[in-house]
C-alpha cells in the first residue's frame, strides 16, 4: 500500500517502513518551536514538575517572542523574561522582535521531510515547504523538549487538487477562505490537507504558506505541499537542504478528495464570528469599518505588502479608520523599506508597526472597542478575538482590507 | 474661621503624579474606578486605608510630573480633607484649586509629624499639632474666588448663567 507525503514523513520520524492512518507511533521530532503565548508555562512545568529536568537537544528548539511585542504589561514582560532567561541559560535559539514565529521558522529553519511541533495552532504553515508541522500545547511541547520525541496518531489525508490559475485581483487567501467556507470549520478534522495539481505547482512558497497556515481553521492537523522545484529553490536561496523529499504514491489512500478550479475563485470575506462563514465580498460591501489590519502569519509577507501599497499609493486612509500595517518579519520589513512600500503606507496615513502578531492576536496592539468593526488579514474572527466581545471581525484579502481602509467601509479594490 | 482635624498619612519628597495615579489606569472611565489604584507603586495598600477626613502631610514638590488632573481628583475622592506639604508642584497646585482640593504650604510640620497622629487646621491661619502652632499663609485673591465658587466648573457655570 502506498503512502501519502504526510505518512512518509511520520514513518521516517518513527523509524519504521510503513505507517497507516489510525496507527499510533513514537516519533523523533526534528524541531520544536515555542512562542510567548505559552513558553512561560512550559518553563514553569520544567522546573516545578520534573524530577530530572534536562533538554534532549537544544539545537532543535526555537523560542520566539512575537505575540506581545513590544510588551504591554508587567505580566507580559514577566512571562517573556522567563522565556528569555531560559533560552539564554540553555543556549536555545531565541528571537524577540524579529517577527512572527511561523515566518521566522520558514525563513530560517523548516526543511522538507521534517516533523515539527509548534506550541501554536498555525504551525501547519510549514507544509508549504513539504514539512509536517502541527500545533501542540505547552505540555506536549515540554515532553518533546525533554525527550526529543512524542506520540503521533497518524491522520488520514484528504486530497485537494488545484487546477488553473487565480484571476487578477484574486489571491491565495480568497482561495483558502473559499475552501474553508466549502468544507466547513470541521471539514478536515484531524486530517491532513494535501494540495496538489497543476494549480498548486504554480503557487509560490509564499502563496503555499497562505493556504497551509489556515488549514487549522478547517480542523486539520496540518496541510502539505510536495517539495517541488519551487520549494527547493526557496530552500537553496536560504542555504538549506531538505531532510527528505517525498511525493505521495500513486496507490496512496485518501479519505476524500476535492478539486478547485482557481480560475473560478472570486474575492471572498469571512463574516463574524466564524472563519467558515464565507461569502462573496460584494455581499458585505458598504459595511462601515473602524479598523483594518494588513499583516499576520497569513498575509504579512512582501507579496501582501506590495498588493496593499499598490492600492494605497496616491490615496489616503479614510479619516475615521485605523489602518495597521504589520510586516510578518524584520526581513520582510527591510525589503518593504527598500522597495519604497513603507513610505507609501506612511504617506497614505497607515499605522506601521514592528513585525509581531499585532491585531490578529488582539490583545496588546490595535485592539478594537465596543461595537467596532475590523476587516483583517489575520487568521481568526471568533467573538472578541480582536478586542471587545461586541466587536466584529471580517477576514479578507490584503487587497480588500486596503481598499476598505481607504473607503472607510468594506469594499473591493476595483471599486475605488 | 473654618477649622477641622484629621488623622495624618505621611508621604516623602517629590511624590510624583505617576505614583499618585499610574498611566495604565488613566483610561478607566471614572475617578471612582481609578481611586483604588492611587499611590500604588509606592504604597499599594494606602488607597484602601485612607478614611474620609484624613490629611496627607508630605515633603517638598508634592504632585510633580504630569498635568493629569486625576491626581488631585483621586486624592479628593479618597476623602482627603487637605494636603499639607513643604511645597507643591505648579500644575498640580492649579489643578487642585480647580477641583476644590485644599492645599496648604507649610515648611516645618513635615519635620515633626508622625503618621497616625492628628492635626487641627485653622484655614488661612495655622495648624496645631501636639500643642505647637505652625503658621500658614493665605492664598492669592483670585484663587480664593475659585475656591469660594466651589471650583472652576462651578465658577464657569455661574459665568454661563447656569448657577
Amino acid at each position, binding site marked *: 500500500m502506498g503512502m501519502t507525503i504526510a505518512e512518509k514523513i511520520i514513518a521516517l520520524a518513527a523509524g519504521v517502513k510503513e505507517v497507516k492512518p489510525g496507527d499510533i507511533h513514537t516519533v523523533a521530532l526534528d524541531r520544536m518551536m515555542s512562542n510567548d503565548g505559552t513558553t512561560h508555562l512550559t518553563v514553569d512545568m520544567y522546573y516545578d514538575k520534573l524530577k530530572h529536568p534536562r533538554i534532549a537537544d537544544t539545537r532543535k528548539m526555537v523560542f520566539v517572542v512575537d505575540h506581545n511585542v513590544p510588551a504591554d504589561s508587567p505580566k507580559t514582560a514577566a512571562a517573556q523574561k522567563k522565556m528569555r532567561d531560559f533560552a539564554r541559560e540553555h543556549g536555545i535559539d531565541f528571537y524577540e522582535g524579529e517577527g512572527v514565529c511561523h515566518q521566522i521558522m520558514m525563513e530560517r529553519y523548516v526543511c522538507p521531510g521534517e516533523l515539527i511541533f509548534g506550541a501554536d495552532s498555525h504551525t501547519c504553515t510549514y507544509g508549504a515547504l513539504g514539512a509536517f508541522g502541527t500545533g501542540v500545547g505547552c505540555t506536549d511541547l515540554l515532553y518533546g523538549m525533554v525527550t526529543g520525541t512524542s506520540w503521533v496518531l497518524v491522520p488520514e489525508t484528504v486530497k485537494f487538487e488545484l487546477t488553473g490559475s487565480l484571476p487578477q485581483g484574486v489571491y491565495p487567501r480568497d482561495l483558502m477562505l473559499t475552501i474553508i467556507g466549502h468544507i466547513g470549520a470541521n471539514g478536515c478534522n484531524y486530517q491532513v490537507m494535501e494540495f496538489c495539481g497543476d494549480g498548486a505547482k504554480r503557487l509560490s512558497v509564499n502563496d503555499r504558506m497562505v493556504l497551509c497556515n489556515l488549514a487549522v481553521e478547517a480542523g486539520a492537523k496540518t496541510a502539505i505541499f510536495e517539495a517541488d522545484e519551487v520549494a527547493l529553490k526557496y530552500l537553496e536561496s536560504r542555504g538549506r537542504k531538505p531532510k527528505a523529499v517525498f511525493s505521495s504514491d500513486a496507490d496512496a489512500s485518501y479519505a476524500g478528495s476535492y478539486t478547485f478550479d482557481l480560475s473560478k475563485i472570486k474575492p471572498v470575506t469571512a463574516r463574524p464570528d466564524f472563519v467558515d462563514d464565507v461569502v462573496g465580498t460584494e455581499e458585505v460591501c458598504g459595511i462601515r469599518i473602524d479598523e483594518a489590519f494588513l499583516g499576520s502569519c497569513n498575509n504579512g509577507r512582501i507579496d501582501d505588502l506590495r498588493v496593499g501599497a499598490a492600492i494605497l499609493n496616491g490615496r489616503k486612509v479614510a479619516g475615521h479608520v485605523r489602518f495597521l500595517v504589520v510586516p510578518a518579519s524584520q526581513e520582510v520589513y527591510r525589503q518593504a523599506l527598500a522597495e519604497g512600500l513603507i513610505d507609501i503606507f506612511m504617506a497614505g496615513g497607515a499605522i506601521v508597526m514592528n513585525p509581531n502578531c499585532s491585531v490578529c492576536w488582539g490583545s496588546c496592539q490595535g485592539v478594537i472597542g465596543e461595537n467596532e468593526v475590523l476587516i483583517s488579514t489575520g487568521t481568526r474572527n471568533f467573538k472578541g478575538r480582536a478586542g471587545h466581545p461586541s466587536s466584529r471581525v471580517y477576514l479578507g484579502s490584503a487587497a480588500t482590507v486596503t481598499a476598505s481602509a481607504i473607503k472607510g467601509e468594506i469594499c473591493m479594490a476595483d471599486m475605488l | 474661621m473654618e477649622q477641622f482635624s484629621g488623622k495624618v498619612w505621611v508621604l516623602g519628597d517629590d511624590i510624583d*503624579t505617576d505614583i499618585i495615579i499610574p498611566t495604565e489606569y488613566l*483610561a478607566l472611565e471614572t475617578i471612582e474606578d481609578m481611586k483604588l489604584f492611587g499611590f500604588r507603586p509606592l504604597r499599594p495598600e494606602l488607597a484602601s486605608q485612607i478614611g474620609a477626613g484624613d490629611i496627607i502631610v508630605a515633603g517638598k514638590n508634592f504632585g510633580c510630573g504630569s498635568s493629569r488632573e486625576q491626581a488631585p481628583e483621586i486624592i479628593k475622592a479618597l476623602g482627603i480633607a487637605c494636603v499639607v506639604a513643604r511645597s507643591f508642584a505648579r500644575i498640580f497646585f492649579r489643578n487642585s484649586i480647580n477641583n476644590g482640593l485644599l492645599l496648604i504650604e507649610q515648611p516645618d510640620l513635615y519635620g515633626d509629624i508622625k503618621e497616625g497622629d492628628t492635626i487641627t487646621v485653622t484655614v488661612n491661619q495655622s495648624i496645631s499639632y501636639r500643642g505647637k502652632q505652625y503658621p500658614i499663609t493665605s492664598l*492669592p485673591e483670585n484663587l480664593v474666588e475659585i475656591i469660594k465658587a466651589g471650583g*472652576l466648573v462651578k465658577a464657569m457655570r455661574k459665568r454661563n448663567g447656569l448657577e
Partner: protein
Amino acid sequence: MGQTIIEKIIAHNIGRETVKPGEIVTVKVDRVMIHDIFIPFVADKFEEMGFTRLWDADKAVLVYDHLVPASQLDDTRHFRIGDEFAKKYGMKNVHRSDGICHQLMTEAGYVKPGHVVFGTDSHTTTYGCVGAFSSGIGYTEMASVLGTGTMWIRVPETIKVEINGELPPGVMSKDIILRLIGDLGADGATYRALEFSGSAVDGMTVASRMAMANMAIEAGAKCALFTPDHKTAEYCEIELDEFQKSLTGDGDALYCQTISYQAEEMVPVLACPSQVDKIRPVSELAGTVIDQVFIGSCTNGRLEDLQAAAEILKGKRVSPFVKLIVTPASRKVYQEAVACGAISIIAEAGAIITHPGCGLCCGRAGGILSDGERVVATNNRNFLGRMGTSKVEIFLASPMTAAVCALAGKITHA
C-alpha cells in the same frame, strides 16, 4: 527697565509696555493642544461648564498619541469621544496617528514665536524652543480656556541659563538639560521661566533646543524660552516680525537667578532611578547590565536623534537578549528617516521600530518591563513604576548614549 523674554511675550499679549513678576494678568490664548488621554475629561467639563461653542475652533488642536495604537479596550472610547467632540464643535485640526502632540505642534506650524499656548500635558513647555510661551494645564482649566479663549496667569520670575562654547563630541543637548535639572533639583524652577542663551545655544538646531524646552517641567518650570533666530524662522517657515525679533532678554532685565555653563565641561549623563534630578555621569555607572533601550519620545524622537543613533548602530547589532525599541516622534520624522537611510540602518541593527507616538514613555505599552529589569531611555521621566513594576529601573539618557548602551548590553560611555 529691561524685560525678560517671558515678560515681553506676556506684556505684548495683554497690550502693555511691561509686566512684573508676581502680577496676575489674563492672557489671550493663541493656541491650545488637547490629547487623547484627557479629551473625555475635557469634553465632560466643557459641557458641564455650560459652554455651547469653542471660542475659536481653529485655535484648538486635538492629537491622538498616547493611545496609538490602542493597547486596551478602553482606549478606543477616547478616540470615539474625541471624534465626536471635534465634529460637534467644528474642530478641523485633528491628528489621529501622526505622532506625538508636542512634535506636531511646531512641526505642523500651529505654534509660532511669541505665541501663548496651553496644552493638557506637562511637556507643553516644549514649544519654548521656537520662542513661544507654552505651558501645561489640567483638563478643567483647558475646558474653561476652550470656552473663553483666556486664562489667568501669574507672571513668573525668570532664571537665566547661559551656555557658552562648543559641545564636546558625544554630548547632546539632552545631557545639558539633565545636568541643569540635576543642579536645580526637581523643584528648583517651580513657577519660574527658564530662559536659555549663549553661544552654544545659538549653535544648536531647533530640534536640540526642543529637547531642552521639553524637559523644563522636570525642574518644575512654568515654561522655557529660546530667542527666535534665523533657524527658528526656517523651521517655522516664516519671516520674523519686529516683535518676534525682539524676543531676547534685555541686558538690564531682572533675573532671579543666573546659571552659567561652559559647554566644553559637559559630559554624557544619566538621570538615575527614580527621579529626573538624580544625575550622574555615564562613566560612573558604566558596566551596569541592561535589558532594554528606548529611543523616542517628544524629548528625543526627532530626525537628528535617529541619525545620531544610526551613526553609532551602523553595521553593528544590538546586544543579544537586549531589546532596542525605536519610536520616531512623528509620521514626518519617520518618513524623513526612511528617506535618509537612518531607519534602514536602525532596522539592520535589530531594532524594534514602532509607529510614531508616545510609545513606552507614557508606560501603557510599547515595551513594559518586569521586576529586576533595567532600561535606558531617551524620554523625560523615570518615575517609579512608570514603565512597568516598581522594581524596574529607568535611566534617562541622550540618543547617542542610548545607542551605545544597546550595542554593549550595558551602560556604556559613548
